[in-house]
């Protein structure tokens, strides 16, 4: 039992790295996803098809593979490790991979949301003399947000657990921290129970998110 504080301390440090990756991914991929969504709806064919090709490649291959390529390729092939060394370099590479990957998923959700708002809404705004900008912000945006909250929530919950994939480039997130006690760390080795402890972190965090996202969904239920 005297091992407990040591383990909890390590897991906490790992979990902070997990949280950082989680929030950086959301902050980056929410807006980037919107740009890709507009790209894939573009009336300019090259932009549209390049966007669609990009989304296909990113969604069609494993995130773990993308992360390995993004992290190792510059150093091994171009002999220029643009990410820098150490934990910070791994964190930046992981963040870039996650942002690219999640923005592709978000872009498809956005696209669905934008296209599901009936065209009559825009037309009603137009005949009332509104500008396109006013129509987007005052009429369609909230309807779109309402429609995308459930699928976005799903992706957000998935992201909580996907952050553990960054283990593959040795990012010191919570799984890495828990696993270290199997191999030996801080004088503890062969211990598998810290891994079970990591589950509590994941469950607690995804539980909080589920409640918050559910509240948001309810809040938008005042209209249909």
């Amino acid at each position, binding site marked *: 039992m005297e091992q407990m504080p040591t383990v909890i301390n390590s897991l906490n440090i790992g979990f902070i790295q997990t949280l950082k990756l989680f929030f950086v991914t959301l902050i980056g991929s929410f807006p980037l996803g919107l740009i890709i969504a507009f790209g894939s709806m573009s009336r300019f064919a090259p932009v549209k098809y390049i966007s669609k090709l990009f989304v296909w490649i990113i969604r069609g291959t494993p995130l773990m593979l993308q992360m390995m390529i993004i992290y190792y390729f510059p150093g091994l092939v171009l002999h220029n490790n643009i990410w820098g060394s150490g934990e910070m370099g791994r964190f930046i590479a992981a963040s870039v991979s996650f942002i690219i990957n999640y923005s592709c998923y978000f872009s498809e959700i956005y696209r669905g949301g934008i296209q599901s708002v*009936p065209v*009559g*809404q825009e*037309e*009603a*705004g*137009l*005949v*009332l*003399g*509104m*500008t396109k900008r*006013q129509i987007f912000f*005052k*009429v369609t945006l*909230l*309807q779109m947000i*309402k429609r995308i909250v459930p699928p976005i929530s799903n992706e957000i919950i998935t992201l909580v657990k996907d952050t553990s994939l960054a283990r593959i480039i040795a990012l010191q997130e919570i799984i890495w921290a828990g696993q270290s006690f199997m191999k030996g760390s801080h004088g503890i080795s062969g211990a598998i129970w810290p891994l079970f402890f990591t589950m509590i972190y994941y469950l607690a965090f995804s539980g909080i998110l589920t409640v918050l996202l559910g509240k948001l969904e309810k809040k938008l239920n*005042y*209209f*249909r």
Partner: protein
Amino acid sequence: MSILEVKNISKSFDRTKVLKDISFTLEKGEVVSIIGSSGSGKTTLLRCLNFLEQPDSGIIKVNDDILFDSDDPATFKESEIRKKRLHFGLVFQSFNLFPQYTALKNVMLARELLAKQLPDYKTNKKEIQNNIQKQAEELLIQMGLSDRMDNYPHQLSGGQCQRVAIARALALSPDILCFDEPTSALDPELTGEVLKVIKKLSEHNTTMIIVTHEMSFAKDVSNQIIFMDDGYVVERGEPAQVFDNPANERTRQFLAHYNQ
């Protein structure tokens, strides 16, 4: 001077000609009903008047102002079109109310946004806002919705929604109010309450263009009937003449379906 003058409007989608050389005039305070089978171009004509579609050729004049002239590209400018649209109001078949706003806010929104562009908006904000709200409330009372102002569209019946939509269009005081099959999405009971409101508007000399399949209503409320078929204005005249004594064989055939 006619309030509206439509001259030789034509419009194609891809290779299908939807409107073929449409011309008519409308006097202030008059009601014209456009009848005809589905696909005859009625809705497209209304959409052209509201600048939701751009005609391929022709001229549209309101109060002798040229709003659209296919030979003058300056009249297609997006920023100009926005102002020109305000001459017309449009009530849609499917209402198209904004679901996230109450009935009252639906009626107020467009005027609020326009008011923000006024130079004295910041200094007189409260007063302007109050005026807009007062006008919206009056319109909703006029539509018989005094107890529905704070309801959201999904809490209203179809007939109530359509009456909110009419109030919303009237809020901008358009010269000409257009209706695109305003009762086609409603059951007969709700149809009646909407038609009653439109009838009342006609008694107050609101200039209106009504696309409808309600023949007896059209006959009752209109000063002028336009029968369209296959993109043409086939027949145009006073209701009694068009309904009781149609000159064109196609008009006769069409009306026969309603008299059965």
